């Protein structure tokens, strides 16, 4: 009688086989030709559409004048850069004298009035304010300023009264500190003071000229010993962001702010002894022509009228958004692959083998999610890292000024976009596990991510309130990770997804997508455990 020897596998029995599970899923992924090709297609779509957008977004200007009716066409000019490298508006009327060394300037502001155009332009160069409406813009500003030079974009510190935001101290375009609240009037004047000590400028305000409160302190890099200092007035244009479905555009026009100053006090060396007026102005800013601006001096009283703004520029053509237009095409491809990674198992019956080999079903889902996320992240990272420099190079060749983005922000955009693709793929995997049907799962994920973005970002499809809501709660919130320009509280602008501004902070928006993916994974796990395969 023969004795049967039971078969023993040569392989060691190990408690934890998760590495093998990962390897199995990776083998499945890399051996299905369609998925590998799909991932390459996703990467090529991202790069290709970015290049297409860059090459076909020409920007040109031609300065047509009566003397020169056919001028050469030039690339669009970039706005001046501020001390931090950001694009700025720097247009105002400057009434100045040089201040040598340390010293201070004190003024009393007794009024701030204004005019604005509602029809997009001004009457004529000779009489630009004809037909304009009286009224002060909320961020109209007038006060005292110490600036490194009269070049646009140079460092400065200023104390000012504003149309409806009280007294402010602002410096180097991006910094803004609130002082006294309330509007200025003859009955309730505002006293402002700037004191220079070395590179440090301190701003003070007062209601009576006797009791002073410190508002803020600014350190200006490269402040020369002789700095142009004095009074200024400026106002951003009037604008109404229409919230309509037809337009979604801004309407409005340039404005003028006029402020009355008296009790001008100067401490330190002011060798010029008299005021010089000058409009600081550039073609990239919305401002009235020089003939509308100016100053008058009568006794101790100075009246200054200015137009334009001293603030970070928010009217940016978003080069990153243009270069990354292909993200959506890549996203759709990645979602299709993510869904198929699980629904193909159901279609072929492979899922039964998979689950027999690894009865703990949660680990199967985890292994699939990890493999899919890793592959997608890698493909996305390479594609985005190639696309942004390529797209920006082509945009520059097409005549577009490229919005300066610092290295940290750029890293966030590149890594964040790759992560966005990876998490979207995992969301697709989870929804595919829940629904088991490809068509429904792909549609649910694409419609959930792309359609809200499409509706929110393309101006004129949805009203503003609905736009903001859509990019807060839907997975489309994650596109905040691609926002390249910060939003400034001290600048009124059309901050909407259509112009590249999202209501949530970049990583907060990304977290919304992650929350959706996590919730979907939990539900998918529950159903995977509960249902027969």
């Amino acid at each position, binding site marked *: 009688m023969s004795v049967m020897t039971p078969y023993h596998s040569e392989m060691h029995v190990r408690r934890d086989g998760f590495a093998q599970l990962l390897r199995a899923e990776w083998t499945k992924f890399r051996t299905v030709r369609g998925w590998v090709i799909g991932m390459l297609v996703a990467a090529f779509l991202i790069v290709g559409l970015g290049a297409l957008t860059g090459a076909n977004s020409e920007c040109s200007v031609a300065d047509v004048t009566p003397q020169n009716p056919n001028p050469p066409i030039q690339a669009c000019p970039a706005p001046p850069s501020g001390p931090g490298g950001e694009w700025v508006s720097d247009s105002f009327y400057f009434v100045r004298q040089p201040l040598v060394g340390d010293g201070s300037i004190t003024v009393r502001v007794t009024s701030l009035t204004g005019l604005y155009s509602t029809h997009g332009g001004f009457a004529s160069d000779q009489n630009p304010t004809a037909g304009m409406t009286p009224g002060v813009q909320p961020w109209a500003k007038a006060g005292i300023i110490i600036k490194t030079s009269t070049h646009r974009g140079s460092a400065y510190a200023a104390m000012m009264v504003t149309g409806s935001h009280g007294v402010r101290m602002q410096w180097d375009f991006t910094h803004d500190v609130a002082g006294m609240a309330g509007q200025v009037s003859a009955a309730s004047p505002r006293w402002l003071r700037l004191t220079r000590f070395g590179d440090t400028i301190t701003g003070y305000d007062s209601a009576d000229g006797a009791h002073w409160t410190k508002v803020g302190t600014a350190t200006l890099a490269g402040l020369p010993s002789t700095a142009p200092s004095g009074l200024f007035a400026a106002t951003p244009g009037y604008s109404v962001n229409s919230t309509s*479905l037809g337009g979604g555009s801004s309407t409005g026009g340039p404005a003028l702010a006029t402020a009355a100053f008296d009790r001008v006090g100067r401490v330190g060396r002011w060798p010029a002894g008299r005021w010089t007026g000058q409009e600081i102005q550039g073609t990239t800013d919305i401002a009235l022509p020089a003939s509308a601006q100016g100053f008058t001096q009568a006794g101790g009283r100075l009246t200054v009228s200015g137009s334009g703004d001293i603030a970070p520029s928010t009217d940016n053509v978003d080069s990153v958004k243009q270069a990354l237009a292909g993200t959506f095409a890549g996203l759709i491809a990645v979602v299709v692959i993510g*869904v198929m990674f699980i629904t193909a198992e159901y279609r072929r019956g492979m899922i039964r083998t998979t689950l027999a080999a690894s009865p703990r079903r949660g680990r199967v889902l985890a292994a699939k999610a990890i493999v899919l996320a890793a592959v997608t992240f890698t493909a996305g990272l390479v594609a985005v890292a190639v696309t942004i420099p390529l797209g920006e190079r082509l945009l520059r060749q097409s005549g577009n000024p490229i919005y300066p983005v610092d290295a940290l922000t750029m890293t966030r955009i590149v890594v964040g976009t790759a992560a966005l693709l990876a998490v979207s793929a995992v969301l697709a995997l989870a929804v595919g596990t829940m629904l088991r049907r*490809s068509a429904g799962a792909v*549609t649910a994920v694409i419609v959930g991510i792309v359609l809200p973005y499409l509706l929110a970002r393309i101006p004129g499809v949805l009203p503003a309130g609905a736009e903001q809501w859509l990019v807060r709660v839907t997975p489309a919130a994650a596109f905040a990770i691609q926002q390249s320009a910060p939003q400034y509280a001290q600048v009124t602008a059309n901050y909407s997804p259509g112009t590249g501004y999202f209501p949530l902070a970049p990583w907060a928006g990304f977290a919304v997508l992650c929350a959706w993916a996590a919730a979907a994974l939990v539900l998918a796990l529950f159903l995977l455990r509960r249902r027969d395969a």
Partner: protein
Amino acid sequence: MTNVVHAEWTKLRTLPGTGWLLLAAVALTAAVGALATNSVTCPAGGCQLDPAKVSLTGVDLGQAIVAIVAVTVVSGEYSTGMIRLTLAATPRRWRVLAAKAAVVGAATLATGAVAVLASVLAGGLLLGRHGFTAAHGYEALSLGNGSVLRAAAGSVLYLALIALFSLGVAAAVRDSAVAIGVVLALLFLFPILSSVITSPGWHRHLEQLSPMTAGLYIQATTNLRSLPLTPWQGLGVLAAWAAGAMLAGALLLRFRDA
């Protein structure tokens, strides 16, 4: 041919998902339309809003569900192997595709009509409360108005053409995930690209070529002069896409092994 259509109708009717999906298409189209209508206001100074287009916003979402139904009608047969039986029963393959187109087209027309009618009714009820009154220069939204009727009827046709387009793509691509991905990519990518490509010529051509953007011109009732195409030309662009997809699907079905 009647038998083939009847067979396709039986297949569509007896799938449990179809009814729910079509119901969802009606409910979501009307709900999104009502939400969009409820979120707009037209101040006394007037606004540039197009009331018909606002109340038909839900079609943007409804088209995705219609596309699922159409893709499943073809891809479902491939995933189960049913297609071999279908083609054995009807060896003239173009007839199968034509019958599917007839059945899906008819189902979409009926669904779309209900969805659009519900959206227009909701719009008519809600718009008056949000400033779209005679005092602000708006007539009440009603199908009695020629251009509103065109927008509504055109939206129904739009949904039917989306179904045919999806059917053609699915016949060409066969796999349901890839087919729906291609359909949604072609619908959504054109408007995204035309929003970032700034050269005026390219921008205009992308809008004219886009099946979704051009097709939805049929919903416009105000500012028609600012559109790069007339509403019916726009719907014609979508019809051309649908015809192209159906032709490609028919040819591939004819010359490829199932």
